[in-house]
């Protein structure tokens, strides 16, 4: 199973890699998608660095597990 980026449609093998893609791209459409889901894109990015355990990426990956289209 693979996951489709809800913003640009790019396919990723798992949600953690999809989360990395979203943070790494970081353009307005990707930011807007994250923000529209009740999270703050920038806050998630900062949590990733301010707190241990890959937390920002995992939070987004969990969201994507529920929200991203599986292909």
């Amino acid at each position, binding site marked *: 199973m693979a996951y489709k980026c809800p913003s640009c449609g790019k396919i990723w093998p798992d949600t953690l890699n999809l989360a990395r893609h979203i*943070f790494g791209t*970081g353009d*307005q459409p990707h930011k807007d998608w994250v923000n529209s889901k009740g999270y703050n894109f920038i806050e998630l*990015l900062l949590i990733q*660095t301010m707190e241990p*355990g890959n937390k920002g990426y995992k939070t987004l990956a969990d969201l994507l597990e529920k929200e991203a289209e599986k292909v």
Partner: protein
Amino acid sequence: MNKYNVINTPVHNIDGIAKITGRAQYTFDVKLPGMLYGKILRSPHAHAKILHIDTSKAEALTGVKGIVTGNDTIGIRQGIWRRFKELCDEEILARETVRYIGEPVAAVAAIDEDTAEEAMDLIEVEYEPLPGVFEPLDAIKADAPQLHEHAERNINVTRHIEWGDVDEAFLKADYIREDWFRCSSQHHVCMETHCAVASYTPDKKLTVYTSTQSHYYIQVLLSWTLGIRENDIRVISRYTGGGFGSKFELDSAQFCSSLLSMKLFKPVKIVLTREEEFIATKRRTAMFYYLRTGVKKDGSFVAKEARVFTEGGAYTSMGATALYLTGFFQAFPYVWPSYRYDGYRVYTNTSPSSAMRGFGAPQATFCAETQIDLIAKELGIDRMDIRRKNAMYPGYEVPGQATIQSCGLMECLDKIDTWIKSRGKLPANQGIGIAAYGFMSGGIFNWFDTPYAFSSAIVQVNIDGKVDLYIGSQDMGQGSNTTMSIICAEELGVKVEDIRIHMGDTENCPVDIGAWGSRETLMQGNAVKRAAADAKQQIIEFAAAKLSPNIVYDLDIKDRWIHLVSRPERGLSFFDVVKEAIRAKEGLTIIGRGHYTPHRKGMISPAYSFGVQAVEAHIDPDTGKITLKNCVTAHDCGQVINPIGVEGQLEGAMAMAAGYGFTEDLPMEDGKIMNPNLVDYKLLRTTEMPETKVIEVETYEPEGPFGAKEAGEGLTNPTAGALGNAIYHATGLSIKELPFTPEKILHAIREQKKKK
């Protein structure tokens, strides 16, 4: 025994005579008929809105010929990352907002520099000052002033690298260490400041003489920002007085002189003063580094986590690449089963930080190598052994990033170990520190989205055997012209004096994307080798027809002698064959073409250099003063092309890197650089240089021309870390903030005494 005729023989810089006799014409020396002189008015504010600019009084001054402001531009926000709109965020002449002290707001052209200077005082700019933010950790706060509309919390770019299960690996570690580091900024301090002479003519052609590392990039960026067709712009840069990463972006001298010339149809020359050079050109990226490292009791590395905030300054510049590379080289030159890196580049109201020799790797190496010595001490493991245990090796794959083909790191460690042991017991307050490093041999970064090959070359063999070599790469003092001549001479089987090199001119040289990222030896070198091989094949085909050897025999050319490989005495003169070949081809000269673009070589580079450096230093416990005693470097640059060139590059890099370690700094107050001159900005002087020794460790790099890799930029990486470790071994003090000033050392000594 040297298997080559030219390669690995000492060749003096082919530009050397022109340079030392003063005949080399730098942009600074260019003078055109009717030329005007330009000056640039710069913002005194770190952050402000431009409300109004009144140039009327300045225009009325006798001798002033023209003034341009942002309103005279076509309003392009430019940058080298052409594919990413948000990263193209810099207007060379600000129209609405200034974001750092020194940002250009207007430019004047006059009959001489004094008049232009006087006119600048008459330009009235009304600003509305805005609150500024100068430190990245302040700039990410929710209530910090925001520099750019698109960058919430001033986060400009983020980079993430990860492999292995980092969290799981930390659980299995026997020992975990966490440290924070602060890596300072540094200025390039090129001997030739940024400068340009632009001449726009009524036929709508623009010629720009300039000091640059990439005439191609400047041609394209000028085309974009001025709205002129790319090949209606000619960029000439025959000699460049130093670059070190500061001269491959469009600068204010190039843009403003071009804009003024387009307005006035007169040549305009702008040379930045040393003060402008410091405050208004780019600089090395300052970084805040957090490292968390997990190891086994025996010293095996199991996991590393790195987090970085960089002080980006006002614009993206090349800082996004420095952000990625510092994360990549944080893992070098070791094998990490798991690794995670999060890097954030943060906008601040300071001059933009960008590329500088090492491109993020010196910061990474300083932090990593400092921490490794601390870990070794804690675990009671020899500092060489912990590095040997975890060293990269030939064939190692950095997960998802790179493949290491050649790697002489282990031999470098052995050589340095032997040297350290030969030093015996050192005097009091004297220590030897080491740092291991690696670096790329040519960055695989097509930020520019160029459709051209990364490097191209043309070889033309003339009737008298003289060879014209046309290349697009830029010699900025590093000696690449000499290196290319050697590669061409070796491949073609002639002597270096047979080669006449043509470079630094977009009108008659093929495209090369520039002298950055340690590209030239490997990438331009491969293109030259291929072009020479193409020409050689044509000559050999003709010689074969003349010699009529048994077809099992191969022909080769060595030392201007075309011969059977198995019977070298049987052959023909290179000159005679060339003459006859050209005659036989109805007078057409022999032309060879070659190009190189890396494919399937990972994310970073086709090849990597490696090395280990030892720095011996004395620390005065009463004053905190550091005296460098010795610096020995074992460096694997693949096959050495020119031993003199390697030595010069390594010594130059060491001087620059030692300056980064303990003398050079850019202190700021509210965004203002406090030492923008060569009195207060302290470069390492010749009298302060230690004895230096270079141990060449030769390997063969399959991707490099004749097996060669980079030599010069990578050597900027280890010195700060090695010096820090020398201080640690001499005094027991580990200082995690660059540069190691006497004040910091004295403070640390006092703190150490208090604890005792």
